[in-house]
């Protein structure tokens, strides 16, 4: 696995959604940032600022209208590698409802032509990593929201991606479930040393999970600031009592508040 060697760089990336009515939406403008290998980078910003768009560009589902992407090999910073393997964890889970937990998790491996025995072994490992052993033959509708998203995480992890992309993975869950899953994900990320990009609305979630936090401006999305999270690992809910935690929280909150206010002005202006 080349998991620890790959990083992504956005070079002055812009993306404008054309619109039939003529008023095109500039979703991203001049985004310049780097996602370090083996690190978790959180992206936080007001609603509609282009966070999901940025993730879709990294995944290759959307092509930037300006600028470009580069994928680096860290041992040889000049040589680009082909697009690293990536898997997405979705806010709406997007599990296939007609497949069992096991079949959902092995879906991608099967498409890839991995032999059955290996498929099953890897899936069992991923399912037990998210604490769902025993639920292999359940259908998604038989699971709670938190369990569904654990399946979503297992389905992404089993692909052994170089980069894990998480788009508000816990946004659809209740507050208590979210806390538990955040802690679980934190330890999962810490033990596997995976490269991850995490889009979130929650400052706490970003501080719990990320090595770097990118704060974005209101639309059109730009990078407002990059903040290193120098909190010790392993992190858990206890980390919130660290004096540095409050300092970082206040700093991010200050940045975000300004941008959210601006976003609200933009939105009300757009409506009139």
């Amino acid at each position, binding site marked *: 696995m080349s998991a620890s060697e790959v990083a992504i760089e956005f070079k002055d990336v812009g993306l404008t959604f054309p619109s039939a009515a003529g008023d095109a939406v500039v979703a991203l403008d001049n985004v310049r940032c780097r996602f370090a290998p083996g690190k978790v980078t959180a992206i936080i910003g007001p609603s509609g600022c282009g966070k999901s768009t940025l993730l879709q560009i990294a995944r290759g589902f959307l092509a930037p209208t300006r600028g470009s992407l580069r994928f680096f090999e860290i041992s040889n910073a000049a040589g680009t590698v082909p697009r690293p393997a990536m898997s997405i964890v979705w806010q709406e889970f997007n599990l296939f*409802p007609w497949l069992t937990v096991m079949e959902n998790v092995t879906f991608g491996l099967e498409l890839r032509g991995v032999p059955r025995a290996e498929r099953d072994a890897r899936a069992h490992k991923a399912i037990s990593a998210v604490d769902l052993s025993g639920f292999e033959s359940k259908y998604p509708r038989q699971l709670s929201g938190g369990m569904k998203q654990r399946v979503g995480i297992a389905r992404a992890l089993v692909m052994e991606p170089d980069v894990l992309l998480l788009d508000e993975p816990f946004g659809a869950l209740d507050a208590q479930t979210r806390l538990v899953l955040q802690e679980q994900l934190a330890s999962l990320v810490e033990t596997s040393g995976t490269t991850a990009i995490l889009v979130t609305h929650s400052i706490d979630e970003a501080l719990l999970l990320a090595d770097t936090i990118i704060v974005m401006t209101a639309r059109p999305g730009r990078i407002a600031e990059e903040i290193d999270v120098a909190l010790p690992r392993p992190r858990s809910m206890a980390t919130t009592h660290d004096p540095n935690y409050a300092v970082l929280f206040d700093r991010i909150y200050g940045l975000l508040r300004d941008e959210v206010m601006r976003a609200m002005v933009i939105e009300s202006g757009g409506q009139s």
Partner: protein
Amino acid sequence: MSQQPLAGRDEAVDNAAVAPLSNPRRLLDNPRVLGWGSVALFLVVWEVSARIAGVSPLYLPRPTHIVVALIELFRDGGLTIDLAVTLYRIFAGFGLALVAGTLLGVWIATSWRVQAVADMFIAALYPLPKITLIPLLIIWLGTGGPFMLTISFLGAIFPIVINTVLGVQQCEPGLVLAARDLGATQQQIVRRVLIPSAIPAIFAGVRLGLGVSIILVVAAEMVVGKLGLGARLYLSGQILETEQVFAVLIVLAILGIIVSKGQDAIDVWLGRWRTG
């Protein structure tokens, strides 16, 4: 437990099985007993009143005589062959329509060009009663096997195509994206995501389509057939064998029940992953 006025369905079934005589009122809580019981009652009333009133068997034969006629028809009247021929005609055409209709439906739903072309033809042909095509099809195909296959095919394909299109179009876009993320090609997305998610809708089309196929094949047999349930029905009527007419109707009714119950069972099985 027997005191509860709002006894559940399962409990009612248990009681009926355990103590059928001690509590006859409970029997009426069992939907199966209620259904079959009313059929039996209907037949008894029919038998008795036909016997008392002395209605001519030419108009209304007694159920017992119909049963005798039915058994005779199966034993030496060749009704078994008629039944087999009719079933073959229905299901051969329907099977073709199922395969072709599903493929065509997926194609229409995934290409706006194909949709634009197909829309016009479907709009023109779908509402047309297919039975009106019988004269034209006879001119083109004669009255043999190809004609029967075509009529059954035409009956089933429209509902199947239309429902497949709806089913595929209603597929959650997030599921397609998730499959793409997991490495699915366009073709794999069709086979592994679009079609499975459309299966409940496709099956709704199958239900409608199979019904129309049955109607059309029997009707076509009445018009042109020498073999088949429809032909047997028509010929019996011609020679005023009313008991035989009723016997064939019973076979058709039982066929209907089997098809419809079979579809219910398939529906439950297909829907095991759905809410409800």
